[in-house]
């Protein structure tokens, strides 16, 4: 049977992927690895069981922290984007300071500041909320740039039309501008989400038993570091691919709705 040109293209892409994966496997095979140590720890790495303290662990924890952090980051990012577009000096000042600080300092430092710094003031944050807060604060700053650009990118004629109908600034933003900005913000936001998922490994320093924490601990105890790190890498990769599909699905839906 003859293939359509698109089908043929897809087949060739698949072959390229398969060869690259094979090459990668060959490279790794040279390490003389023994994956038997991974097998019994794999359910923990995926987070299918709770840890001895009865808390989430592994990929399940990473996913939970990432989704929660992303949700908070979107709210923070939107607020900061509106602040940067605001005529109020206070809102603008708050937004720009926030943006500058959290984009200008390493995420690891921010995590340690929250984890080690906050207890100096009194409150000792629980590890999971603290991890979510650190990631959300950092990624909210990056998202604010994406959202600001998306809002500014909406045709000014849309503002004029809504204003000319007597709509308030707030209603115009909410009902006219944001729904349109949303569409152009989805692809870069999806990319940020994938990046956040991987950066969630940094919260292992807070003692959260997420993927990287487990991989490193198991690696140390079994002297099979590379095997466990590779396993962690594959888990992150598969999760990222899942997010890519989620993003593609969302884009598709938005396109179907308003072209």
């Amino acid at each position: 049977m003859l293939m359509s040109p698109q089908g043929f293209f897809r087949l060739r892409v698949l072959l390229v992927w398969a060869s690259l994966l094979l090459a990668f496997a060959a490279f790794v095979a040279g390490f003389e690895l023994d994956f038997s140590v991974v097998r019994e720890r794999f359910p923990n790495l995926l987070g299918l069981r709770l840890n001895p303290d009865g808390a989430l662990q592994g990929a399940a924890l990473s996913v939970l922290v990432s989704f929660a952090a992303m949700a908070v980051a979107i709210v923070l990012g939107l607020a900061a984007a509106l602040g940067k577009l605001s005529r109020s000096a206070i809102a603008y000042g708050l937004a720009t300071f926030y943006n500058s600080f959290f984009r200008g300092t390493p995420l690891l430092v921010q995590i340690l500041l929250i984890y080690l710094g906050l207890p100096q003031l009194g409150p000792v944050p629980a590890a999971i909320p603290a991890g979510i807060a650190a990631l959300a604060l950092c990624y909210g700053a990056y998202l604010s740039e994406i959202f600001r650009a998306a809002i500014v990118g909406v045709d000014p004629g849309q503002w004029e039309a809504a204003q000319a109908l007597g709509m308030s600034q707030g209603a115009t933003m909410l009902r006219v501008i944001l729904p349109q900005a949303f569409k152009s913000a989805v692809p870069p936001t999806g990319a940020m989400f994938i990046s956040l998922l991987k950066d969630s490994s940094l919260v292992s320093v807070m003692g959260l038993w997420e993927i990287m924490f487990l991989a490193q601990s198991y690696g140390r105890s079994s002297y099979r570091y590379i095997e466990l790190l590779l396993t962690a890498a594959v888990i992150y990769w598969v999760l990222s691919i899942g997010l890519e599909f989620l993003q593609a699905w969302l884009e598709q839906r938005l396109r179907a709705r308003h072209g």
Partner: protein
Amino acid sequence: MAERALRHNGQTAAPALVEARGIHKGYEGHPVLHGIDLKVGAGEVVALIGRSGSGKSSLLRILNGLVSMDAGQIDIDGLRLTAQDNAARTLRQLRSTVGMVFQKFNLFPHLTAGHNLMLAPQSVLGLGREEARVRALAMLERVGMADKFNAYPRHLSGGQQQRVAIARALAMSPKVLLCDEITSALDPELTGEVLDTVRQLAADGMTLIMATHEMAFAREVSDQLVFLHEGKVHESGAAEALFSDPQTAELRNFIGAMDRGRAARER
């Protein structure tokens, strides 16, 4: 009937619905309008003509508060706007009285034609969903677009989009409708349907102020013609009189250039 007869004398007997005095506007030091006076009676159709850059668009945008003025005063239906008093509340009140239709339609692309019309009545006038829907349908009916209630703007032709945009402005029950070169972005074969819609509005007694390059149309439907030149009202009066007997060289040149342009297009 008596009212119509009066209108065609180019006079406004009743107190003006729109009265602008001494409007000045400049952009970054370049004066665009210097000292515009304009008086428009209820039910009157006024055409603003003049070269591109003569300030037609700026004047329309100032009349509904989209652009602030540097000096001057506008009275519209008992509401006063000055260069000093342009609080957000006053502006919103003004805009609920003054509708505007744009050259590039500016329909909301993420909403269907029907929802384009329902949004402002719900958001500004506080109408319920059903009420807004009934009103939207009636307005689409008025511009012959009722069957496109559920169509997204991208599925409509330019002429259809502009008719929906007119209906959207009408859905706010404005006392005055401003039209900013509403056929300039349309293919020539699509201007007719939009002009027909405007003609119908004029016949229904809607007060219209339109910036236009459609000279024949301006001559046909307008009661008052205002020729803007270098940011001033250079000449104004009854359309017929102005076209047949322009008093200044500038207007003569302008009408001549427009006629030549149209002749060239028609060839």
